[in-house]
């Protein structure tokens, strides 16, 4: 399922290697971290279905099924919906045909949402997100040079934003800082792509951070390695990156006590 990818005139994707990397990704989550991983069935007709993050935003007990900006991906939502329903979450569907939202543009900091207004996400989509998660402030951040807001940033800790060094990334960070009543710490990494990492707070493991491997981004990896309190797990993502895939793209994290 995760093979067929809509690449943008980039280098050829080594499907086999991509598969291996993804298996490793899942393996870490499931095996090393003890998370319950629900894998959506691959659908060859949906080349981007591996990037499950874009089709759902889950926060607490509520899941918002998005309306992806790329029309070819709209059908991906169906599979996600089935799975989320099985998890007994409050499900909100984005039915407005004027709205588009990719989960990759949604950064939840734990205190508020930042929504990147990109080619894939528009104002209306952000509004629906705000209507869905009323407890939280939803601020919009213009995203121009990247596919998604989270193409160059992510949460690396409870109050820590990992951010790339590019001008666009720094500008977006400033926007976010201005828009927020909270003061976030920032972790600046040389490579924008490396700024997309996965932070997990697992009761038995503490702070866990999945970040790009040193082989891929050695300088950025060094920055991550300075995080003393985190369990650092480097993960390679070389192949999916060729199709604009990042670490967070391939999963939707749901905080659900082990009821399943």
């Amino acid at each position, binding site marked *: 399922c995760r093979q067929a990818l809509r690449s943008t005139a980039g280098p050829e994707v080594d499907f086999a290697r991509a598969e291996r990397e993804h298996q490793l990704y899942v393996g870490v989550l499931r095996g090393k971290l003890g998370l319950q991983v629900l894998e959506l069935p691959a659908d060859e007709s949906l080349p981007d279905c591996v990037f499950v993050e874009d089709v759902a935003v889950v926060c607490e007990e509520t899941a918002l099924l998005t309306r992806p900006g790329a029309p070819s991906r709209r059908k991906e939502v169906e599979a996600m919906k089935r799975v989320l329903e099985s998890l007994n979450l409050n499900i909100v569907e984005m039915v407005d045909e004027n709205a588009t939202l990719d989960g990759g543009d949604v950064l939840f900091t734990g205190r*508020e949402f930042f929504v990147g207004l990109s080619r894939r996400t528009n104002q209306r989509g952000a509004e629906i997100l705000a209507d869905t998660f*009323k*407890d939280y402030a939803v601020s*919009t951040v213009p995203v121009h040079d990247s596919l998604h807001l989270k193409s160059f940033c992510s949460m690396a800790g409870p109050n820590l934003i990992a951010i790339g060094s590019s001008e666009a990334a720094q500008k977006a960070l400033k926007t976010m*800082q201005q828009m927020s009543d909270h003061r976030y710490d920032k972790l600046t990494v040389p490579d924008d792509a490396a700024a997309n990492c996965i932070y997990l707070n697992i009761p038995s493991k503490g702070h866990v951070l999945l970040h790009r491997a040193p082989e891929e981004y050695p300088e950025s990896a060094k920055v991550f390695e300075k995080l003393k309190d985190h369990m650092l797990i480097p993960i390679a993502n070389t192949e999916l990156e060729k199709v604009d895939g990042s670490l967070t793209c391939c999963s939707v994290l749901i905080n659900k006590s082990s009821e399943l």
Partner: protein
Amino acid sequence: MTTEVGSEAEVKKDSEQLGPDKAKDKPEEASETPDDQKSRETSGEAQDSSVPAPTSQSSPNSQKKEKSSPESKGISRFLPPWLKKQKSYTLAEPKDEPKKRATGEEQGVEESESQALEGVAQPRKSLEEAAENRENAKADDKEKHSISAEIQPSKEDGKETEVEEAAEKKEEKQEEKENRETKEVQTADIKTDNIPQKSPKKIKTVQCKVMLLDGTEYSCDLEKRAKGQVLFDKVCEHLNLLEKDYFGLLFYENSEQKNWLDSSKEIKRQIRSLPWIFTFNVKFYPPDPSQLTEDITRYFLCLQLRQDIASGRLPCSFVTHALLGSYTLQAELGDHDPEEHRSDYISEFQFAPNQTQEMEEKVAELHKTHRGLTPAQADSQFLENAKRLSMYGVDLHHAKDSEGVDIMLGVCANGLLIYKDRLRINRFAWPKILKISYKRSNFYIKVRPAEQEQFESTIGFKLPNHRAAKRLWKVCVEHHTFFRLVSPEQPPKAKFLTLGSKFRYSGRTQAQTRQASTLIDRPAPYFERTSSKRVSRSLDGAPMGISDQSLLRDFSATGGQAAGDKIIDLEAAGQAKLKESGREEDESPLKTPQLELAQDGKISSLRVDGENIYVRHSNLMLEDLDKTQDDLLKHQASISELKRNFMESTPEPRPNEWEKRRITPLSLQTQGSLEEEITSILFSKERFGAGTSGPFAAASPGPAEGAAGEQTGAAAAAPGPQRHASRAEGPCTGVSDADKSSHETLDIVEEKKQAEFGIEETLVIDETNKGKMQVATDAGETCKVEHVSKKDSSSLPSDSSSSSSSSESEDEEVGEYLPHHRAIEEVIREEQEEEEDMKRKEREENTQHVEAIPEGSKLNVPVEHTQVPAEDLVQENRVTVATEEKNLSEQIKQDLGEEKEEEQLKLNGDVSHVDIDVAPQLICCSEPPVVKTEMVTISDATQRTEISTKEIPIVQTETKTITYESSQLDGNAVGDTGVLVSAQTITSESISTTTTTHITKMVKGGVSETRIEKRIVITGDADIDHDEALAQAIKEAKEQHPDMSVTRVVVHKETELAEEDED
């Protein structure tokens, strides 16, 4: 009434009454009792008689009349309906109104009465007294007639109190009321006035209804002239609420137009129609409710939030609705009891706008999990969850952006939020905002330049109407002051350009109320938690508002609808008035302003004006500080004292400087925008008067301090004017007095004033330009001249506005507010964040006092520098101490207070040293300087960024003011000596740092010098990198003031109380 009315009535009453009033005032002084008796004997006749007496008293009366007459005319245009309405309302009302007018403020009047009996200028004794006397006010009014001088002081007191309490709206309302009063007087008020005098004890009362948060209704009878504070205190007493600074009284003007009752102004001037119906609401939502001292306070906050949530004003998710609802049940019903609490017990409560069965089930489910929580604990949990909601404490206002797109502006503790639909599209933290202003229906914020940018940017928003713009502006000013400042900012000086509202928040800040709360020492009061069933349902929508509206409508219909409309239009009644008058006068004035500016010959007069303005500000500042200090000390004593302090904090604090204070109270009173405007006008008038007569000149310095002005005026030879002023109107009491006096002396002034009005308006518009000019113009002389001219113009405009009180606010009413004082701190924060995100906390913990005093003089004429750093530091210390260590803080505070006093004295001395003349100017300047600074900011292009945080130690300013009085005269004489154009002190506090900026502008010969002293206090528990902090401070200072050079850096390190100075 007649006499009193005369003072206040100047504006109110048309030329007819005004003349009498003035005359009355004077006669009152001369023969107070006789007038009173006369008035009492026959209201109508008495008035007449009183009128003649006033006329006989002095030409000033005639002048006043003339001046007032124009105003009255303008007012009358607006007022006629109102007056009619009032008359229709009650025959007795007119009497009361005149009385009120005379006293300016009821309290003031009362006080004045008592004071009058005691002495002429001591009216300021205390707000408390005034409040107490309110009831007596009627009788007082009678007395007042006799004692004009007394009235003035009382007015001052009232003003002070008002200032403390601060209510923006009140100003406008007061103006309106004044207008009304005048109308009444015109028609048959005179008679009525006499009547009241005859039966002084006759106190017309108005029944007030206050909808409380628990859904119950509290009603009481208030004297018609009662200020908002009286009612608010009654309500709080009824509620047994001590931490009341977070709350306020709302009334609805139109259907949905919520207005906060200005506690410092008379209610009747704020509400134009009967009945008086209010809702008791949370005004400032504490960001951390757990820091509230008493459970009962949290309880009321809970009630408010339940309303907010149930009505949908505070949106939250399903889960949150359920959770909060469950805490509500726990708090009100206790532990879940399966026997007692059946399935439907929840449906009686309203937890959400759209409550579903599913939600109720969830609530019940969660309720069961809260077993064991006490009501107070449940409330605390409720608040802990509610405070995290993104819209908690956000006051939303509809607006359009520059492109006409509908947006919402949200004012909250941290700053201004911009929403488009539900999305936050921008945010301006208070530290980022250099200035807040409004003009007509436009609302502007000037934003600090971004890191790499050099120029400040001004962002404009379009509000539905002028009133909405002003309302938003006021809310911003209040929120910034309450949450960001240590102590209330002094009312704006009559900035050269800004004619608009001088409204400032006069209540206690969060820091002050927290300090005061620490002194609360009473057993937790017992209170009964009412079922939220009622609450939620009664409070849900805007039924209250609707009912109010309907009531209002009915009332207006009966009383006079025209008035109602006008009232509505008059966000500030004064504004409307101003508009009319402004229209008439303004047009010409606009043209004239330039002319006036061109006319440098008026410099001296201009200076005087500026001084007056400054004085006002300084007075305000001082009072506030004093209040805080005094309050703190008092609070220590006992609960009762606490209450009193809350009520009266301002007046009592400075017993030492009574005279000065007296002056200051006037300025304080002026806080109301309208009032302020009026005051400014009055000041200008005074200035004119001063020019004409020596005593007034003395008074002119006074204006700065209001009280002083009154004192001087009274003492000198303007007792009549003073009386008039006191009578004139609470807001402008001090000012009004001066104005009145000026009016009396100067008939011609009116014309000038009009011209000034125009100027003011133009100035306002062109403020930025002017400011730039000032700032940019390095040529000291030219700059000076401009400033002077500006000042003059501003002062003149103010005068005119005062004369036409409404003229100022009107169409072009502009309000400016500079919140940036803390910019430095923030800058520091930001840098730290960027560079040292991780280290911030540590630094914060550390305590460092870094004083970077960059002194830049574009014009190189070094003028004497007043150094207030010590004071600032002390204050800062206080703040930090108070917040962090309350127990210790008291002692420290005392110590600090002593130090401050010393410092203040020194400062005063310095000021006087600079130039005797200058000193007065300095005082004035202190306020105007702020304006100037603003101007500078505007011109920022020129690069000077002024961080004008004006949390200046009020005391200092006051002290200065005192000195100034005498100096003003000198200043005129010593034109060549350096003249303090402006002195500004801004203090900003951040969590860990406090920045105080003192900006002094001196004009000497042809050279002007601007000195900026910045005090940056970094407080922390851990070690701080002093060098780094210092480097940053210097760097910031350089960045902020590229044109200026850093001439001196002083570093103080304090460990606990020990201080180490490093130069």
